[in-house]
């Protein structure tokens, strides 16, 4: 099993560790609910160094990224970040990812669970003018998330974080370490993601500096458990649950990052055809008022018939009720529609809702 540069720190803190995408990762430190609320209320820190980072370099880099991703890279300026997907020729999703425009090259940030698959997929489409480098193993990634993240990070850098817009990044020193810092995250909160060399000594320096800076806000480490409940409360997709090779971006409500008019890209024809034929199902939010928690794989039922499946579900620590996402036929996708979720062989009333479940700025 692989270790991130923060592994010794997690062990020292007594984190509960699990295997995730080949890494030994912290699922929780003190408890999912407490860690979740820490991020919503002040600030929390996530080691997400398991994520994959690829650099795309060379003369053909722009054309290559434009061909391989669904969002319009032509709209992306240097210093900005774009959420996007990669699709197969049949329109199913290879992965969702972030595209960083770093001037002379692009950085793609992909899901750890898809790293090898993504690299192979990209490599297969490379041409002579483009170079693809997997820099995942030499990259540490720390996410500092929550309303007090800016007050925490401001203490550690001369970079102008107050002017740094959402989905933009800066380069420079944070805690004396060369970094790329972007205003991005997977929690729906104000937050930053900090990329730097995967050296355990640097990791220790960065970690300690961030925790010292955030001490006045009761900063806490946050594991993958709360990372999942945080993203679900704001309706963000998780690859492998809510999206995969059998779902196209339009039915997954990712039409806003699927630019059919930008020119050709891998999967475009199939997605355009699916759009023309009409989307038959849609990824929607579901809320449960009863004391029951919808979970991945549970059937969604309407009129006694199974009409879909819960793709992600949990207890919302903020709303203190069951929330889920799942695909429902378009005729049932109208917010307010009543359906049922089979929770451990028992039908439980559920209401189709828009996401996010929790409104954030």
């Amino acid at each position: 099993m692989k270790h991130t540069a923060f592994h010794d720190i997690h062990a020292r803190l007594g984190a509960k560790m699990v295997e995730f995408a080949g890494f030994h990762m912290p699922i929780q430190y003190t408890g999912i609910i407490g860690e979740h609320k820490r991020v919503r209320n002040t600030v929390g820190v996530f080691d997400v160094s398991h994520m994959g980072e690829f650099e795309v370099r060379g003369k053909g880099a722009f054309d290559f990224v434009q061909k391989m991703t669904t969002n319009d890279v032509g709209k992306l300026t240097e210093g900005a970040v774009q959420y996007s997907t990669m699709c197969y020729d049949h329109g199913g999703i290879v992965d969702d990812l972030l595209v960083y425009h770093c001037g002379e090259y692009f950085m793609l940030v992909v899901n750890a669970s898809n790293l090898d698959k993504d690299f192979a997929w990209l490599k297969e489409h490379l041409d002579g003018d483009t170079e693809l480098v997997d820099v995942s193993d030499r990259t540490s990634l720390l996410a500092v998330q929550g309303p007090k993240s800016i007050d925490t990070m401001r203490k550690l850098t001369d970079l102008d974080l107050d002017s740094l817009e959402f989905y933009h990044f800066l380069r420079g020193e944070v805690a004396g370490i060369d970094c790329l810092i972007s205003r991005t995250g997977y929690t729906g909160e104000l937050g930053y993601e900090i990329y730097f060399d995967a050296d355990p000594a640097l990791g220790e320096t960065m970690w300690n500096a961030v925790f010292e800076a955030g001490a006045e806000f009761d900063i806490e480490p946050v594991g993958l458990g709360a990372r999942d409940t945080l993203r679900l409360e704001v309706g963000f997709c998780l690859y492998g649950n809510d999206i995969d090779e059998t779902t196209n971006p339009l039915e997954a409500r990712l039409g806003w990052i699927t630019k059919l008019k930008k020119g050709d890209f891998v999967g475009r024809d199939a997605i355009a055809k699916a759009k023309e034929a009409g989307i038959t199902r849609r990824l929607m939010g579901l809320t449960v008022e009863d004391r029951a928690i919808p979970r991945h794989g549970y059937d969604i039922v309407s009129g006694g018939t199974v009409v879909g499946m819960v793709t992600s579900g949990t207890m919302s620590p903020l709303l203190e009720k069951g929330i889920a996402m799942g695909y429902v036929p378009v005729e049932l996708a109208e917010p307010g529609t009543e359906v049922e979720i089979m929770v451990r062989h028992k039908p439980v009333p559920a209401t189709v809702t828009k996401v996010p479940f929790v409104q954030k700025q």
Partner: protein
Amino acid sequence: MNFPENLKYTESHEWVKVDGDVVTIGITDYAQEELGDVVFVDIPEARAVDAEEAFGSIEAVKTVSDLIAPVAGTITEINPALEGSPEIVNSDPYGEGWMVKMTIENADALSDLLDAEKYKSLIGK
């Protein structure tokens, strides 16, 4: 992690406290730690149960687990505090966080349960 010597244990991570023909049942310290934050305990009714029958479920944020009757008997009481404060299962699994009380049919069946030493070795502690 704590495994009181005066309790008996099951392979499905319940503890059993014997008091004459009445037993109190809960989940072990190990079980609550593995589950993480408990958000509710669902025990539908006080009724007769068979040994190894699921009499309820325990929902944590990440996962859900059945509650298994260690021996045959009749549930006489369900811990009323669980309804409003399920987190007591995490904070005090052997005390405030008990699940049910049962009258048992056959006290001999209790001898099949594990003692603290055997339970500890089962979970590798």
